[in-house]
């Protein structure tokens, strides 16, 4: 058969788009609030629009919860906690969570496409990274639900009650999983507010939780902007607040909780140092650096946004990085070839642009590949800055976009000094062939996660969270349970 086929005249390796179909997603025109097991019209009677950031086309109207709506949701969560969820045996809670994990696996393509439509991230990432991690997170914590007495020696495991959870727009479903899975495993009930620009996947998740037969009120999803989140964390009947987002908002939340007995965990911003020693495997390190800063358009709190290259290889490394930058495909997030998708919102695009302008004004040298950007939507070219000094805003402030600030160092001590010269402390990366040096660096880097000869690796079994102003508390792993269990003095 094959031997009779004529040889192709010429092989054309030009780019061919490969667009994921969106047929799998059925959107409703308007979404209510998911409270007490049902979608309900908001008492506020207000709705807002969520758009596709890659096209600026409206996707759906979403309810905007006011204080009265928040109150309803918290009451439902409290009733669900009091009426049995808090006392349900661990094995039954476990089976609910396992069931949810399986249902996510079954519908993972649909959820991945929705995530990309609403948030702008490349389908390759939502399909191959976000959704598998979401299912894995539920699976992992499902297994803890009936084993809590083994998690912490001497600690009698007791849930806190109602958790109010506010999550960001960069990994909407993954952040939902990080919040809901450990909270439910520990026996709490939750009210969760997804980000204003990416509410849809959380609402689809609410449908799925309801199909799983989860008792009403155990999970409540309320949508809205900052005021909705503020009303949630300030609600007097919330026992625990978990927030992932900017350091500025995290500090406001901590302020508003002062004087209350609410438990708080914060996963905030970052300005991670990515340190490359001259004995590092260069080509692997280049891939690590690219992944570290351009994964999810750099909308990643642990993005490796400050690159420190040992002086001896600095110029060669930067040249290779520039060449690699030119191979990145920027554009339609639904195209399976896309490496860098859309910026999440006009507001975020403005913030990135402002900081990049500041970088140029302060004297750093900018490099961008000459890639074409789509006409509509929010886009930003992958960007490098060389000649950055420690005091530049682009070396100090979190940009949360595809912008890398490159600096150099001579000695390991200098690398540590510079890497730690930031109020943040979420993550860090080290590339060197020498194992003892990795561990020496890991001891000195003030960061909650240190990746060695790799970057941006996540696993439900591995704790994640920050030092210093990157927040406190850990999500993931055995340690992630601690945020949702009573401590020894409660």
């Amino acid at each position: 058969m094959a031997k009779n086929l004529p040889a192709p005249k010429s092989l054309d390796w030009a780019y061919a788009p490969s667009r994921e179909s969106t047929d799998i997603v059925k959107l409703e025109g308007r979404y209510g609030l998911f409270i007490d097991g049902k979608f309900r019209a908001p008492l506020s009677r207000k709705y807002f629009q969520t758009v596709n950031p890659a096209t600026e086309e409206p996707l759906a109207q979403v309810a905007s919860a006011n204080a009265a709506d928040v109150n309803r949701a918290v009451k439902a969560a409290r009733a669900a906690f009091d009426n049995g969820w808090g006392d349900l045996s661990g094995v039954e809670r476990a089976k609910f969570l396992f069931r949810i994990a399986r249902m996510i696996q079954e519908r993972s393509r649909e959820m991945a496409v929705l995530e990309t439509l609403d948030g702008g991230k490349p389908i390759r990432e939502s399909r191959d990274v976000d959704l598998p991690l979401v299912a894995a997170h539920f699976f992992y914590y499902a297994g803890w639900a009936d084993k809590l007495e083994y998690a912490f020696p001497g600690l009698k495991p007791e849930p806190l009650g109602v958790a109010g959870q506010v999550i960001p727009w960069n990994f909407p479903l993954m952040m939902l999983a990080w919040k809901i899975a450990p909270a439910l495993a520990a026996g709490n009930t939750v009210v969760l507010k997804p980000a204003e620009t990416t509410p849809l996947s959380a609402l689809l998740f609410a449908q799925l939780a309801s199909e799983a037969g989860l008792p009403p009120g155990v999970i409540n999803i309320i949508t809205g902007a900052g005021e909705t989140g503020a009303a949630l964390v300030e609600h007097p009947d919330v026992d625990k607040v978990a927030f992932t987002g900017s350091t500025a908002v995290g500090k406001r939340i901590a302020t508003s909780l002062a004087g209350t007995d609410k438990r708080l965990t914060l996963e905030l911003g970052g300005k991670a140092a990515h340190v490359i020693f001259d004995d590092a495997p260069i080509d692997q390190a280049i891939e690590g650096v690219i992944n570290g800063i351009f994964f999810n358009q750099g909308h990643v709190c642990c993005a490796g946004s400050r690159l420190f290259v040992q002086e001896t290889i600095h110029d060669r490394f930067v040249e290779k990085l520039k060449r690699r930058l030119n191979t990145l495909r920027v554009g339609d997030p639904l195209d399976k070839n896309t490496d860098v998708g859309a910026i999440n919102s006009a507001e975020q695009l403005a913030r990135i642009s402002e900081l990049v302008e500041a970088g140029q004004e302060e004297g750093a040298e900018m490099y961008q590949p000459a890639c074409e950007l789509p006409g509509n939507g929010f886009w930003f070219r992958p960007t490098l800055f060389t000649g950055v000094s420690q005091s530049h805003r682009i070396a100090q402030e979190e940009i949360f976009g595809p912008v890398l600030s490159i600096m150099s160092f001579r000695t390991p001590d200098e690398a540590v000094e510079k890497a730690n010269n930031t109020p943040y402390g979420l993550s860090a990366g080290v590339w060197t062939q020498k194992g003892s040096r990795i561990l020496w660096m890991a001891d000195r880097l003030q960061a909650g996660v240190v990746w060695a000869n790799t970057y941006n690796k996540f696993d439900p079994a591995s704790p994640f969270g920050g030092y210093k102003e990157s927040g406190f508390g850990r999500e993931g792993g055995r340690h992630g349970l601690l945020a949702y269990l009573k401590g020894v003095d409660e």
Partner: protein
Amino acid sequence: MTPRLEVKKTYKLYINGEFPRSESGRSYPALSADGDVLARVARGSRKDLRDAVRAARTAQEKWAAKSGYNRGQILYRIAEMIEDRASAFAEQLAAGGLTSARARREVGESVDRMVWYAGWADKFSQIFGNLNPVAGPFFNISAPEPTGVVGIVAPETPALLGLVSRLAPVIVSGNAAVVVASESQPLPAITFSEVLESSDVPSGVVNILTGSAEELVPWLADHMDVNAVDLAGASAEVTLRAQEGAVHNVKRLVGKSGYSDAQSPYLIAAFTETKTVWHPKGL
């Protein structure tokens, strides 16, 4: 009209993902509590046992190399498939003498037990492993690894829950198992092997032999390529014989004669070896 003639199932061994009869050609009758012959089942031989150990040894390395998450999902799948065959199990357990309510309860408990152990797959090393604060510039970490090939003498009763309770903690960490099934009530174990065969458990990870425990267990305990034996289902005489045989290759022996209803991560730990790794810290 003549009634339709029922097609009866042949009950065979489960070795390396296949269902052979005993190479010895022997079988024995499995009796109900009332003394009726339910079926004839294979009476495994020494050769069958050796085949099973070889299959387990071959399968073990790859099984252990799978991620804990993956093994956990496979154990969870086993639970799904037990639930799916709940009525077949309940019928066999009832034939063994349980009321139908108790039989159904045992099946439910077996499902839940498998789910419970499934969750440990990616967690037990977080409980039994740790960083050791040694007095020097060293990174020093201890973590459990599966011991290898484990022989399991399944309890006579409960015929399903006992088997599940002893098997799950062995395979969850990455060991491969050779099980000697309940001699008096072998049918649930054979049906369970059909569950395993349809649950993405790789061939050879679990092998189930039916036959005489008095014959099979000493061969298992003497076998130089078996790392540990669980004696929970062994009689006092068989236990003593196994303890003598186990000496030759310093087998780990776990489980006292007489089944207990234990569900414990320490049963997982019992079939692991602790490995400690040192690495210097410094420039």
